[in-house]
């Protein structure tokens, strides 16, 4: 499919490794749930109505400034591998790609910053992802997109409850913000309980990163906001920002302690990881993600200055099973994946001439 071919050849803007704290905050994401007033919610629709929702959204997307050169996919037209690829890429949710019905799919802007899901749990899920910690920027883009779409088509809304969503948990602002965090300091210094308490106090959710790297794979954690009713957009964003900064401070402190007490041991681990990724002939994604985390930590500690965060992000993205198979253009068993993954990492790292 055209879209998949396009995505394979490009690095999404949110993996470019810039923005604030790009080594600790991989990306910032904001998303809104919206429904169209004139249709019942997606799970109540027959095929004809799902098509009508699809057509309505396609009309609306035309001429939206944040949706230049939109690329479109329908779940029914994708192979299972392509569906897994879009989930890894964070352009589709598992629920979206499992819904094998007409009118289900998405729209993606050419740099992948802005995307929509159509006929998932709600008619529309609008998403903006940016690299690093860029909460205000992500929200500014998302609210402009929302304003443009909401003036062309009427959303389901009530003065009391706000934006009306299929599931009551999203009711209200129907906005969720999340950051993908790299927290090796907290993990290595065994501060996870304090981290868990902080999340609970701040009413935050902890999620894994879709694709194969959740379950804190590679010391990556996705933290997202929960409050959406009884709070203004600004207050909600402020609360979330403060909570993230608190987590980042906790991580910085943990790293300083580690550096003070175990400096050589830490450097040893970082350079061993570099050696393994430069030499391994077979590597699982799980093992690779751990070594990539040490390299990322090395960048954060100022050791591997010639290693761009973007390259680490690309290795984490394209090292995932579906990405690897799309990259090499054929389906593979896990053994072959491990071989090609190791080759991909070697090629990437040897071209950099790291010392």
């Amino acid at each position, binding site marked *: 499919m055209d879209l998949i071919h396009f995505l394979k050849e490009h690095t999404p803007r949110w993996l470019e490794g810039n923005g604030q704290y790009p080594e600790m905050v991989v990306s910032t994401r904001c998303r809104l749930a919206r*429904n169209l*007033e*004139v*249709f*019942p*919610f997606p*799970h*109540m629709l027959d095929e004809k109505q799902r098509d*009508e929702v699809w057509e309505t959204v396609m009309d609306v997307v035309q001429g939206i400034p944040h949706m230049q050169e939109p690329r479109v996919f329908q779940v029914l037209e994708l192979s*299972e591998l392509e*569906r*897994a690829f879009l*989930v890894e890429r964070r352009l589709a949710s*598992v*629920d979206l790609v*499992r819904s094998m019905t007409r009118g289900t799919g998405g729209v993606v802007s050419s740099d992948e910053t802005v995307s929509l899901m159509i006929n998932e*749990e709600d008619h529309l899920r609008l998403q903006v992802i940016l690299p690093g910690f860029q909460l205000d920027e992500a929200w500014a883009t998302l609210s402009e997109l929302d304003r443009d779409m*909401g003036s062309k*088509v*009427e*959303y*389901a*809304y*009530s*003065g009391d*409850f*706000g934006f*009306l969503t*299929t*599931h*009551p*948990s999203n*009711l*209200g*602002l129907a906005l969720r913000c999340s950051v993908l965090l790299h927290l090796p300091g907290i993990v290595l210094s065994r501060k*996870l*309980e304090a981290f*868990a308490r902080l999340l*609970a106090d701040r009413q935050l*959710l*902890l*999620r*894994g990163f*879709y*694709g*194969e*790297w*959740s*379950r*804190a*794979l590679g010391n990556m954690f996705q933290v997202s906001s929960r409050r*959406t*009713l*009884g*709070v*203004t*957009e600004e207050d909600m964003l402020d609360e979330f920002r403060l909570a993230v900064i608190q987590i980042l401070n906790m991580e910085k402190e943990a790293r300083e302690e580690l550096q003070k007490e175990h400096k050589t041991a830490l450097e040893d681990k970082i350079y061993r990881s570099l050696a393994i990724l430069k030499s391994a002939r077979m590597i*699982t994604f*799980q093992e690779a*993600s751990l070594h990539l985390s040490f390299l990322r930590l090395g960048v954060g500690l100022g050791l591997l200055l010639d290693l761009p965060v973007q390259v680490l992000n690309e290795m984490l993205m394209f090292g995932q099973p579906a990405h690897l198979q799309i990259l090499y253009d054929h389906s593979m068993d896990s053994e072959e994946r491990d071989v090609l993954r190791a080759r991909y990492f070697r090629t990437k790292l040897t071209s950099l001439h790291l010392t």
Partner: protein
Amino acid sequence: MMCEVCGLREADHLLVEVVGVEKHKKHVCQNCAFRLAVAVPEEKPLEMVSYPASEKREEQSGRPPERMDLTCPRCGRSYIDVKKTFLLGCAECYYTFVENIPRLIEKFHGAAHLRYRGAPYTHDPKRRALMEERTRLLAALEEAVAEEQFEKAAKIRDRIRQIEKELGWTSSTS
């Protein structure tokens, strides 16, 4: 419900494992949730969602009883279905089940009194006025039927249909 992993503590987290395009769900306690989320990773992705605190405490007094007999006139969804799945059927469901909505808000947002405080949204004031008129007429219709004023009820119903047509609503009941 008890934790499906240790069986010792009350489950207050939902763990979702993502394998390819499949999801496996497990209800677990906070201890196990965190242990699994950060333990030596298996090659399985996972998503951890803790329930809002209020979901654990049930019910207090001094509030109107839950209306279980309601069905949305626009999409045909019954409140019993909503209770089972926590999925509403259409925008109108929020008006139809309005007496019960604070219970859902309490369950998912922590307190029944919470209301929208974000920026107001208006797509088209004319449409908004039509929808508000329709909501008023639905109440009047119920009243007229209760008082057995059937002629009046029929007139109200005609006006409601007319408004729905003007709004361009597609409905699974029409």
